[in-house]
């Protein structure tokens, strides 16, 4: 069996597991935790798709998340539209932000790009507070309507979107597109010399990344039923990057696993709320010093080698 086939079968297995888990652990608390984890999965996968493949690390991913979430908030609370419209509008608005940030930062290399994206999300965070009349300021927008009636149904809906976007991102990553994105990481000048329109692929990958992140943001908003400026923070962006590194950068599925793992981990440590930050920093240190390739994707690759 080719490596690829095994990957898809493994993904199917993981999906099956995720479908079954809430049926086993019926508590709505666990379903809630898992739903949030699935949103993080979408955010991590979308980050990995752009930054993991092209090597252009985006430290302002929360911009797209917040954009999607607040779009959902506005449409629901301020305009009274059905929450399903958010799922259409949120990715579009996020893509708009992607274009807005993407073009001016095209020529920025590595750390400069990271910082520019970071300051973009910080500016939005500040604007959200400045224009509190429209955004609800620090308290944000409350009273959003859920997409479906039961938490279980919402979970499956989110899972469906995560699976669909994960598959889509992975397919693109495995296609010639993915090859080009990885070549951009290798060397941009050589890529141009190979006849590839590097700027097009940079913008396009950022837009795709933004769309999925924004969609995740909307799903999150309609689950939590509130949005706040904490969705634009650097902390959120960094947490997602940590999840990606734990999962194994560049694999798409690894970051999803990393997101699920870290969310479950921090929830189980909820009782020790002061120590949650310690957990994250400990994980960070371990990954940096011992597991730069991540934990999940390398583990899966090892399992795969042993299979027939």
């Amino acid at each position, binding site marked *: 069996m080719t490596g690829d086939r095994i990957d898809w079968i493994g993904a199917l297995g993981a999906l099956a597991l995720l479908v079954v888990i809430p049926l086993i652990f019926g508590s709505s608390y666990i379903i809630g935790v898992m739903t949030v984890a699935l949103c993080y999965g979408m955010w991590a996968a979308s980050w990995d798709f752009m930054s993991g493949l092209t090597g252009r690390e985006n430290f302002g991913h929360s911009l797209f998340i917040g954009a999607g979430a607040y779009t959902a908030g506005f449409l629901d609370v301020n305009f009274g539209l059905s929450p399903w419209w958010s799922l259409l509008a949120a990715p579009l608005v996020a893509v708009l932000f992607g274009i807005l940030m993407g073009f001016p930062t095209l020529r*920025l290399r590595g750390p*400069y790009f990271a910082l520019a994206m970071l300051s973009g999300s910080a500016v939005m965070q500040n604007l959200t507070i400045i224009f509190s009349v429209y955004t609800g300021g620090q308290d944000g927008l409350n009273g959003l309507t859920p997409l479906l009636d039961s938490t279980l149904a919402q979970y499956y809906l989110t899972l469906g979107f995560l699976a669909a976007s994960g598959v889509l991102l992975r397919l693109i990553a495995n296609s010639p597109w993915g090859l080009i994105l990885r070549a951009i990481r290798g060397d941009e000048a050589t890529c141009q010399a190979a006849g590839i329109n590097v700027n097009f692929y940079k913008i396009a990958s950022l837009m795709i990344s933004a769309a999925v992140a924004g969609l995740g943001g909307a799903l999150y908003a309609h689950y939590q039923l509130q949005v706040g400026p904490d969705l634009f923070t650097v902390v959120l962006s960094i947490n997602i990057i940590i999840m990606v590194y734990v999962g194994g950068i560049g694999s798409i599925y690894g970051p999803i696993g990393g997101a699920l793992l870290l969310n479950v981990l921090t929830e189980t440590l909820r009782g020790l709320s002061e120590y949650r930050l310690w957990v994250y*920093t400990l994980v960070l*240190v371990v990954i*940096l010093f011992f597991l*730069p390739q991540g934990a999940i994707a390398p583990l899966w690759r090892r399992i795969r080698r042993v299979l027939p």
Partner: protein
Amino acid sequence: MLQILIYGAVISSIYALLAVGFTLVFGVARILNLAHGAFYALGAYGVYTLTANVHLPLWLAAIVAVVLVGLLGVLIERVLVRPLRRSMLAVLLITLAVALMIEQVLLLAFGSEARNVPSLVDVTYHLLGVDISGQRLFALAGGIVVLAGLWSFLQFTRLGSAILAVSQDAEAAQYMGIPSDRMYSIVMGMSAGMAAAAGVLVAPFQSVIPSMGLLPLVKAFAIVVVGGLGSIAGSVVGALLLGFSETIIAFKISIEWSQIVSVAAVLVTLVLRPAGFFGKRAAF
């Protein structure tokens, strides 16, 4: 008007202390030290503990706090940063980890309530119809004194010139026999000490809470990006620009709007002139 002038000057002086230390570490050691704000917080908490618990006189507590934080900076550089030097991202994340850990320790040790640090100068001056606290003026003076001291050190001592040489060209400095590795530790210690000094100077009139280092870090960072990573002059100019524009906007418009200046300035600078407006060469 006079209030804007004084407040602006005080805040600029503190920003300059933070920014110059930050840019020095970057210029010499090529690392973005995200724990810089934590050193600032440690300075404030240090002087608090040393006066409230150890009962040292204020002036001694201040000096001891600065020195201890400086040494901590050296230690962190040697133990945590040096092994990861090959990857900028790794160094960035490890300093972030240090910052988070320090904040956690402060939270656990002191709780989240603001602590009270007595003023060194307890007088309120009355100038031209405006009340100005003596402590703020002292902070302004203190900042200027420290910066002047740093400048003299860099210009007139052998070690200082060596540091300046490394910040301009690390490789060339190594060929000349200047041990760059040791430089990094020293500069990190100096930078941490300067941040701690800033924390000590503002502790009497700013809220001393565990997360107090975050915003100053952001400001220092913004100043350094605008001024040019590695450029000391750029940091000073940037500090003045940011300090005064924030003060003017805070007085004339609103505090919320004043907070956006720093991050907006970073974005604009990166898009227009990534190397900063006063920096001589691109930093990365």
